[in-house]
């Protein structure tokens, strides 16, 4: 195992970290699969953007973050919150529109928040969260806090002007921020090649005098390594990085179903990526290298299952917000 890890230049990768990578990815996968199972009941009355297939990015990045580091996410944000450590109860309750939801039922699945863990709200305007993430990192700099901000966004958000303006500002001010572009090749049904002539997202960083790197977003160790490098660069005043992590979403843009049968994408493409499942591949790696036993893995899975069951029952049993809450929370 040591030899394999050295291949990644990760002499310090411990069993503990590797196990946490696995647990984090599996937790996201099982959480999303639970939504797939329950969504047809139509009790979760809000759009859901699932990240099945993309789990390695959230897991690999967030394992490098401290509890009070900031994370800014997007419409496809369940995985980011879970990886940052958010408990499941307020998330499920939010999907169910309950008063106990993380946003008290006012946000829905696209507007998650967990200020205690550095998630200062989530924008569902494509690219909209990027400036705010840079602003939060500016605040950290001005307050002399040792805090790094990670901003997750898609290849679609890379099309938006907000990205360039923000990245430029972050590099100009050498802010402690890591831009994580989850390149799943699609923005709804539009392929990256239909929107971008170059398809070399990470190369953009060079023009802004910043660090850019492109990694296999389905390889959790590769993501972890890139993020560790970028987070420590940010923390020591080296400015922002742009990590482009290539991956694929298995489900349709929104909702629990696959979309290839609607003609959105070729089935072969999905098959190719399912074959390269980040969770399955990492599980095989851990077993092959004798890092983790199947029994340990089963224990992880049953703990996650228990957490999910508890959170779903909690969400279902929770009350809806009262009508009077409609007019509350607008102004301080």
């Amino acid at each position, binding site marked *: 195992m040591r030899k394999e890890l050295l291949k990644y230049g990760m002499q310090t990768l411990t069993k503990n970290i590797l196990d946490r990578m696995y647990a984090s990815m599996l937790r996201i996968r099982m959480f999303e699969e639970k939504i797939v199972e329950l969504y047809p009941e139509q009790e979760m009355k809000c759009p859901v953007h699932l990240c099945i297939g993309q789990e390695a990015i959230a897991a690999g990045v967030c394992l490098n973050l401290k509890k009070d580091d900031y994370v800014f996410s997007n419409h496809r944000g369940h995985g980011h919150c879970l990886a940052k450590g958010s408990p499941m109860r307020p998330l499920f309750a939010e999907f169910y529109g309950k008063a106990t939801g993380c946003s008290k039922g006012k946000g829905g699945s696209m507007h998650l928040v967990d200020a205690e863990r550095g998630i200062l709200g989530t924008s569902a305007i494509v690219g909209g969260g990027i400036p705010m993430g840079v602003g939060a990192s500016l*605040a950290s700099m001005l307050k002399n806090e040792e805090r790094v901000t990670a901003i997750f966004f898609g290849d679609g958000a890379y099309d938006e002007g907000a990205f360039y*303006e923000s990245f430029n500002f972050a590099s100009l001010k050498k802010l402690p921020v890591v831009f994580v572009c989850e390149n799943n090749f699609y923005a709804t049904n539009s392929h990256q090649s239909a929107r971008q002539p170059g398809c070399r997202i990470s190369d953009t960083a060079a023009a802004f005098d910043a660090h850019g790197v492109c990694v296999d977003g389905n390889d959790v160790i590769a993501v972890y390594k890139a993020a560790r490098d970028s987070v420590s660069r940010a923390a020591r005043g080296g400015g922002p990085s742009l990590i482009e992590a290539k991956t694929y979403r298995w489900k349709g843009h929104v909702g629990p179903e696959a979309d290839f049968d609607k003609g959105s994408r070729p089935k072969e493409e999905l098959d190719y990526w399912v074959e390269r499942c980040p969770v399955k591949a990492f599980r095989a790696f851990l077993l092959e290298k004798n890092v983790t036993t199947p029994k340990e893995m089963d224990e992880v899975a049953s703990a996650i299952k228990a957490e999910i069951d508890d959170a779903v029952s909690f969400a279902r049993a929770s009350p809806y917000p009262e009508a009077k809450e409609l007019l509350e929370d607008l102004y301080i």
Partner: protein
Amino acid sequence: MPWTKVYGNKAEFEKHLAGEPGLRGLTYREALLEAASQMLASDPSVFVIGEGVDDSGGVFGTTKGLHQRFGKDRVMDSPLAENAVTGIAVGAAVAGMRPILVHMRVDFMPLTMDQIINHAAKWRYMFGGKLNVPLVIRSIVGRGWGSAAQHSQNLQALFAHIPGLKVVMPSTPFDAKGLLKASVYDGNPVIFIEHRWLYEHMGHVPEESYTVPIGKGIVRRPGKDATVVGISHMVYESMKAAEELMGEGIDCEVIDLRTIRPMDTGLIIESVKKTGRLVVADTGWKDCGPGSEIITRVVEEAFGFLKAPARRVNLPDVPTPASPALEKAYYPGAADIVSAVKKTLGK
């Protein structure tokens, strides 16, 4: 209270000042500069950001020299990226700072609408009150000298439409200073709109730090025959009109609205109940503007008190032209207010 007075010009103010020793006079621009300076000095979470806030002109003098005193981290120049820089200020506010963001002209703010409308205005409600956006966006209305269509707009109505924002338009130096502090400490996103023609106005401004409450209008001139609600620069035109009308025996009550959102409906209704006549003079266009809103509220809550149809004084329904000949025709002033008031009196 001397500082609730409106002085038509510097000479008029200086005449009064001579009669009231012990009171200090400042221009509107100096009042804004002093407010920012005092907050920067007393609160490390306050910082100023915007294009050219550290240049020698200092945003028409309102930020002049602040970067030398407080450093370029706290008085921060920004790239020409209005949308992102607005979002950056929103993010910094959510993360515990109190940014004062300056967009030199309201005309540049259409580029920032995503961050203002979709983010700043929503960030508290959308997360069930768990986060706040203590942000002030200062912006400036131009007028005259051929500034034309893209450097002279009055877009207060756009912002006033949005729940979650507050919109402030002070007209006097005293209010400029006190409302800027109130805005910085309000805790909500406040759009603070200044008018270039106000910068040279003088008035009494205490040296110590103080606030003027957001959401409260003020009667600048009591009267019994007609209510004139003025906004920003139009407060001065309204005062001139009131004086002129007094010469004809018509006694106007002039209200300075000061805040567009939330609107001080109560003060206006009180006044209309007394006068039965209403004219609103705004610096912007007529359609769906503050005047429309004020008159609607009066109709909803005090219809029976209106003795005549209410009137509005606004810009004509076209963009600003450049030629001085057309500009002259474009901008309404005291004369238009006078004739609007007379119409409500059937004259």
